[in-house]
């Protein structure tokens, strides 16, 4: 009962409250950064205009409509979520053609995910066949 009352005291909240849980060790590893990471202007546009075809032996070209000055990232991911290839870029114009090369990726079916710097995602299926 004491434990419960103590808990109630801890969690009864009025307005905006932070619940620390639990009081564990500080973060191990990692380092504060971000000063050298610029995400550019916020992406307002993101769409896929064209793909060179979902089946490829390795080279892959994708046309995108993007916001100039914003950063984007292409990630080729396995179905289990593992990222096999990443390609980041900063848009220099509203319509761009991005050449990607998956020659070192094993044959299979993958998701190609285009992310913008606001967290939006677009997904294209890519089949690597040799």
């Amino acid at each position, binding site marked *: 009962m004491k434990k419960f009352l103590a808990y109630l005291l801890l969690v009864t909240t009025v307005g905006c409250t932070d619940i*620390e849980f639990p009081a564990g060790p500080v973060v191990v590893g990692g380092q504060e950064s971000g000063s050298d990471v610029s995400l550019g202007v916020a992406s307002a546009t993101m769409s896929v205009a064209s793909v060179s075809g979902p089946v490829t032996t390795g080279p892959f070209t994708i046309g995108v409509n993007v916001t100039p000055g914003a950063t984007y990232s292409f990630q080729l991911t396995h179905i289990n979520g593992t990222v096999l290839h990443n390609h980041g870029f900063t848009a220099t114009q509203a319509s761009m053609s991005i050449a990607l090369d998956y020659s070192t990726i094993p044959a299979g079916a993958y998701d190609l995910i285009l992310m913008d710097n*606001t967290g939006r995602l677009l997904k294209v299926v890519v089949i690597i066949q040799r």
Partner: protein
Amino acid sequence: MKHFLAAVLLLLPVPALAQPSLAWTANTITTDVNGGPIVKDDTISIDVKVNPNNTTIRSVYFDFQHQKDALTFLDVQQREAIPSGASFSYTNYYYPNCRFNRTTGNTTTNGWTNYAQANYTCNSSTVPYHAINRIMVNVASSQNLSLATYVRLRFRVTNVAAGFAYDSIYMNFAVGYDAAGSTMTNTENTGAKGVWVQLAPGANNLLSGTVKHGANVSTGLQGLMRLWVTDTATQPTEVAITAIGGAGTFGFGSPLQPSSWYRMRVLVPGDSIAALSRASVTVSDYTMAVQEWITQNLDKTFKNQNIDRGIKYLAADANDNDQFDGGDLQRIFNAVAGLDTLMKAPAGCSASCMLSIPTIRGETYDSLGFVSWKTFTNTIIQLQTGTADQNVTVKYVLRGDVNLSHSSPVTSVAPAQQAAAFTMGRFIVPGASSIDVNLNNVIVTGNTLSIPFNVDTKSLKLSGLQFEVKYDPAKVKFEKLEVNTPSWISFVNDDKGVIRFGALDRDFKNFLSGAALVPFKLQFSSIQAGVDLNSSVQIYPTMDAADDKGKQVGINFNTTSIKLIGANFFKQP
């Protein structure tokens, strides 16, 4: 020279004596003579094939065994191995209450040996069901038999009481006679001795029916649950047990006896009961119970507006004192907050240990009254079998699961009685309004990150809100929950990468309502450099929301997965 000729004679090949053989054409039959599944009162046939093997085999002396109570022997029919125009007849001598005593000496592949070594027990009390048919099939023909079916035996499947313990039909031996009438002591009896008559599923059931699973019990757990039939109450002795996954259907035949009493319990693996209990008791269970409690009449009766079924009161009686009282509210709240688990396995009980949960016949479960639930103690189904199939609906209830989200649903057309269900991106409460929850992927630029839960209550007034998420503890560390709710009691529980959190209004005075609310923010720190982070947070199906009456409402998610992406992934390679 003499020696040479003798040697040549010795070396000349001597033709082996040909051996006819007889065997069943199949060792299981599943269809009646019309090709349909076998049910009682059907006629079935089973065939015996012959391989003459260049002999002049004509007649055969058979010894068949069957269950006289389950099958009535009808006749023997001539089949295609016997040439047309041949003379065909048979005689049968019937030995009721007799059984062939099988030994290694009389179950050989030689029919004559089996005949010579045959041994029987004939006793109406010790052999109540079996019978022997000694059948002499007489065939006379100038032509030899062909390799094909020799005879067909026909039986009628008796309409014996459900649950009868069936046995195969056996060909104990078959001895051939050639055209000259000589016994063919080398007659082979090949293949298995018995033929199993497979009745249609349910054709011999004494008990059949369906276990009605809770709508939110995962299919994986449903597959691990069992229905257990015992014949004693205090020291359960197992009679039958079956898996109840999927549709939850079951059928019990011969393990049970006609006109006998049994108990049925639903079992859950010991290592799953606590997780099931935690998932089933959430904020709307508490708000539903507390609303009923605080609106009670002055005479201590309840209005039954929130807890509107007897079975829900039974679930709400968390302290198991046959009353709905303040102590139940406290225990349910403790469970919602993660301080306690209402149903858990005792020490030492894990995956291989099964636990029974309150199991109730469907019609009783549905009709349990607002008063009668207090004296209801039959949380094990007790029933008596008859002589025919008895259909039973089995339901179960979990302690504290007031809204029956994980217990069996009450059978009713009223939407309020239907259980909530989680589908991808939606938590559906039939007949109820719903709120929107929007989650965004997170671009990680430092070593800390925050996931806001954006809520649009869609004009509803909320009194409780609860979620559960899973993260990868190898990549991020949960730091804190930031709560922005009006004077609500909050709770958070982080357990091995799964965070259960929420808040509720115990006073039902300060409701949450609005279109752009952020009642919760989860804050994490990155284990590695945040800018290189690539992980995700998954929304788990344990979630809940309650309105200002304490009733459950639905939740619409825009996604069930939040990606956490380091900023370095946006850098030019």
